[in-house]
């Protein structure tokens, strides 16, 4: 049986002025369904570039990137947007909640892209908020929530449309230890109990320890893999 994410000879380069920068070069990697993978490495190692490629918000220069049944590297910008709306949940370091919307409305955003009744949407949003433990904060605006709570809302937003893949860019980078631990526990539970495949970029060894597997990148290449 083939891996959920299959990356073969993946490269990404771009030109800045007269200089060509290659943050990722010839990377090959398999990620199984339900895996919780941590990507570590120094700044400029290519871990965020890899995360963005896996999330479909950037396109590779060469190589193949197969996620589930989709050859993501070959999708157009519009096709990528549609694919993301169905298959990916993105969790940002700084939560990226829309400040003028309540927690409920923020979580509802991905569902507005599908043909779903208002009642169905309400049910799914309430379930997602309940799963992250914030059902009682549904009508609060982001400014009325703590950092940990904001990140929980962001996670609810990432899972509400039931994507197979969650990508997280330093999800605990802006949180205190207690909040960070609770977010990592939530992510582990999503992988273990709900079968989500999670790819997480982190600088924090403790966060990486919560993952099932940690990959180290350096100069755009995979250097070591650590299994937990």
């Amino acid at each position, binding site marked *: 049986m083939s891996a959920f994410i299959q990356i073969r000879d993946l490269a990404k380069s771009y030109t800045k002025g007269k200089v060509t920068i290659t943050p990722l070069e010839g990377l090959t990697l398999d990620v199984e369904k339900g895996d919780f993978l941590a990507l570590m490495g120094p700044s400029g190692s290519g871990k965020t570039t890899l995360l963005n490629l896996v999330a479909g918000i950037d396109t590779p220069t060469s190589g193949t990137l197969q996620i589930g049944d989709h050859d993501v590297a070959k999708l157009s910008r519009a096709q990528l947007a549609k694919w993301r709306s169905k298959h990916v949940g993105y969790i940002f370091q700084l939560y990226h909640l829309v400040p003028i919307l309540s927690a409920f409305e923020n979580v509802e955003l991905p569902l*507005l892209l599908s043909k779903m009744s208002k009642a169905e949407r309400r049910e799914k949003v309430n379930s997602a908020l309940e799963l992250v433990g914030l059902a009682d904060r549904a009508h609060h605006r982001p400014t009325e929530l703590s950092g940990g709570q904001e990140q929980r809302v962001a996670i609810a937003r990432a899972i509400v449309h039931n994507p197979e893949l969650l990508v997280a860019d330093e999800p605990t980078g802006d949180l205190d230890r207690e909040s960070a631990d609770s977010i990592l526990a939530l992510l582990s539970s999503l992988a273990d109990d709900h079968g989500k495949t999670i790819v997480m970029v982190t600088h924090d060894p403790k966060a990486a320890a919560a993952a099932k597997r940690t990959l180290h990148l350096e100069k755009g290449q995979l250097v070591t893999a650590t299994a937990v």
Partner: protein
Amino acid sequence: MLPFTYAVRNLLRDPARLLQTVGGSALVVLLLIAAVAFNNGMDGVLTASGSPRNVIIVGKGSEESIERSEVPLASESAVATSVRGLSEQLGQVAVAGEIVYQAPLTTSSGKKTQAFFRGVLPPSLLVRPELQVLSGHFPGPGEIMVGRLSAKALGVPPSDLAEGQTLNFEDQDFIISGTFTAPGTVMESELWLDRNDLATLTQRESLSAVLVRTDGASIEDLEVFALQRNDLELSAIREDRYYEKLAQFYGPIKVMTWLTAGLVAAGAIFGGLNTLYAAFASRIREMATLQAIGYNRKALLVSLLQESLLASLTGTLVAFLVAVFLLEGRTVSLSVGTFVLALSPTVILVGLVAGVLLGTVGTLPPAFRTLAPSLPKALRSQ
């Protein structure tokens, strides 16, 4: 698509910006509708004042200004008897010799003002069927009939021009005999009095012009008459062409109106663009987040347009409300005549189109700039 409420709430995100955008849009739209209403009013009064069936006979060389024209008294009867195909009513040929004159007058309340007089006899009504006596009667000797808009044109209280009031002109008192209307024409701001009275007071022995209403006769027939009677030194011009020429004379005023409106509008548009650039720039990351969720750029562009259109159309509504109170029905007096500013369907359409263009064309450059950065770059922005 993003819900419409998202656009509405974004609009309320920064009340100061909202106020600036609505105010700027209102200013631009108000200026535009004022300019259109002004130019429409001026065009309208000049167009309505000239009938293609009327021919003005003026002194040779005075084709561009009746006021400077001198036509011998004999011309009136000469036209009436020499040219066939003129309009007739109860045996009376529609030929009216008139004297026009500008001079100061004093109202009964003591207010002194410059007025435009027209010395007429009853045949003037035959050449101007659109003219109606609203109250009182056509002026006889010692009387003056006032146009419906003359109070506004003269800048005097309407009570000063009420029927029965006295007007002093060239040291002689005249009783106001009535009020007349001639919708949309320059005559509505004039004062009409007996031609013989005006000739006596101004010691004038000639007419300013002879107005002829045709009924089969062509302009060429009257031009031939003018050429044949070279002893009278006359020239014939169609009345509508005369006012068209007059309108051309006011072209620079129209250009100035548009230029002023355009310059202020350009300032407001650049100010608005600057505001939108700043407002949208602060939301680059939010737009990128929505794209990461799965919204495409088109959906985000539509939402930004909805937001701007809401603001600009609110501004348009404000502009119309202000226009109803400040512009609608306001009388503008120029030397060519007096007209009323009106929020006509054309003016309303121009205002609405301007509002929509401000909300769309004005939004596109900042919106494109907001949505242009690559997603990874936009997600990293502050």
